[in-house]
């Protein structure tokens, strides 16, 4: 996979190939499969996201009892028209919470890039498709854009909370989603890169501090901020706004911030929200074998 946005921007300039095609063609080489098979495989990922979304079960709580059943509350508020964010943002919020809860309740999800952040991309993509009626092929291309961005982040920085903090999970998912949306809005590789960079800048340094070490609190609700942040970042890029710090440098900064974060804020369940009196009480009440 590519290691820099600059590389992809230049290939686009020289060959006229779009961001998603550049990522897919590289995959085909790496996996030794045809472009058709690669596209089909990514289509299956998108369909798996859709079926995960529609199989949300509003009656389930997680084994710890910490999360579950909130997705339906957002849905009800949205139906009643009481959300200040409006119906479209409300739909994104609803889907993000639902997917996070489904993951915590042992349902089938698509890690994107991780299980903890699995709600960000589907919340944005599925809502946008419902709203704008994009054909599935466009959504799959956008998913390739997201994958390419995730690949760059994985190589320049990290996509694991244990290695880089939550900026590497919710932050990475948000950057990936932002780039995908920028593509759907007609953006070129440059616009896509800046959308991703602007999204990451907002979440730089986010701690990974799961209560009792479980992918539940704060993970489920953080999917909402990752999703909404992706949308606004893509809109900024679509409006012609650019990150003053070049995208590749933003993700280098992310790597450095990840290294500077203390271990207590990297999935150890020892710092941040996990270390609050309530967080500690939850951990002490947890059942083991």
């Amino acid at each position, binding site marked *: 996979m590519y290691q820099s946005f600059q590389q992809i921007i230049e290939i686009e300039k020289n060959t006229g190939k779009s961001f998603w095609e550049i990522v897919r063609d590289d995959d085909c080489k790496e996996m030794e499969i045809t472009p058709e098979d690669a596209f089909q495989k990514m289509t299956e990922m998108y369909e798996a996201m859709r079926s995960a979304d529609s199989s949300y079960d509003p009656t389930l709580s997680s084994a710890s009892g910490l999360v579950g059943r909130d997705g339906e509350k957002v849905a009800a508020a949205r139906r009643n028209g009481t959300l200040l964010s409006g119906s479209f943002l409300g739909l994104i919020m609803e889907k993000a919470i639902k997917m996070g809860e489904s993951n915590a309740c042992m349902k089938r*999800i*698509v890690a*994107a890039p991780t299980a903890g952040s699995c709600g960000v991309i589907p919340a944005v993509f599925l809502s946008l498709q419902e709203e704008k009626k994009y054909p599935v092929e466009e959504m799959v291309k956008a998913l*390739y854009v997201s994958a390419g961005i995730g690949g760059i982040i994985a190589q320049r920085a990290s996509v694991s909370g244990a290695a880089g903090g939550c900026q590497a999970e919710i932050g990475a998912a948000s950057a990936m989603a932002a780039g995908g949306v920028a593509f759907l809005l007609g953006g070129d590789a440059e616009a896509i890169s800046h959308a991703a960079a602007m999204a990451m800048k907002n979440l730089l340094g986010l701690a990974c501090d799961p209560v009792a070490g479980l992918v539940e609190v704060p993970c489920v609700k953080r999917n909402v901020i990752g999703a909404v942040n992706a949308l606004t970042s893509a809109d900024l890029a679509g409006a012609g706004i650019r990150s003053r710090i070049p995208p590749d440098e933003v993700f280098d900064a992310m790597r450095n911030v990840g290294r500077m974060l203390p271990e207590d804020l990297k999935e150890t369940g020892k710092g941040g929200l996990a270390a609050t009196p309530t967080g500690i009480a939850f951990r002490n009440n947890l059942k083991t074998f």
Partner: protein
Amino acid sequence: MNSFDIIGPVMVGPSSSHTAGAAKIGNIARKLLGTPVQDADIYFHGSFLATGKGHGTDKALIAGLLGFPVDDPRIADSFRYAEENGMKYRMSGIDLGDVHPNSVKLILTGTNGRKMEMVAASVGGGAIQVTEIDGLATNFSGDYPTLVVSNLDQPGHITEITSMLSHKSINIATMQVYRSSKGGHAVIVVECDQEVPETAIRWLAHLEGILNVTYLGLKDKA
């Protein structure tokens, strides 16, 4: 790395290391045993012990022992399927010492009476390492067709294995040799690029000095 390491895997939540990795460990243990599991003693270590219940590590491991893949929705109800299949199990905590925090020890008996002990670790992103088989240290991921040969520590066995593989045009990806003591019991682990045919495995198993041959194919036959 490719796009599907980033978008994917499709898995049952909540955690790639504590849930998907545990299911994979169960699956590999079952394949190594080569027969359905009749009875299992399961010992969780470290973070598996501390947060395993909350992450469904127990359910995922049982599901894996039943042969369910990491994206199988039945994982959440695996205890019920174990009961239906007559598979018995006990779970408890253990301190395995200085090992990966997400480690588990399994003592298994197959429906054909075969016994196996295994220690494995979930090392992140759903990837795993088998770190011990029947008391001997190993180090393989289960991502390749893998041949595990226990033998007496005497000259010739490595040549027998490698010449058999070359005869079958099978390329070796990695090869590791471990032994308990000089002249004692040894384990040879060979990760291959192609599947090893059953006839070749049977041939190996009959050679003098070879105690046991276990084969981990990528396709599940058990």
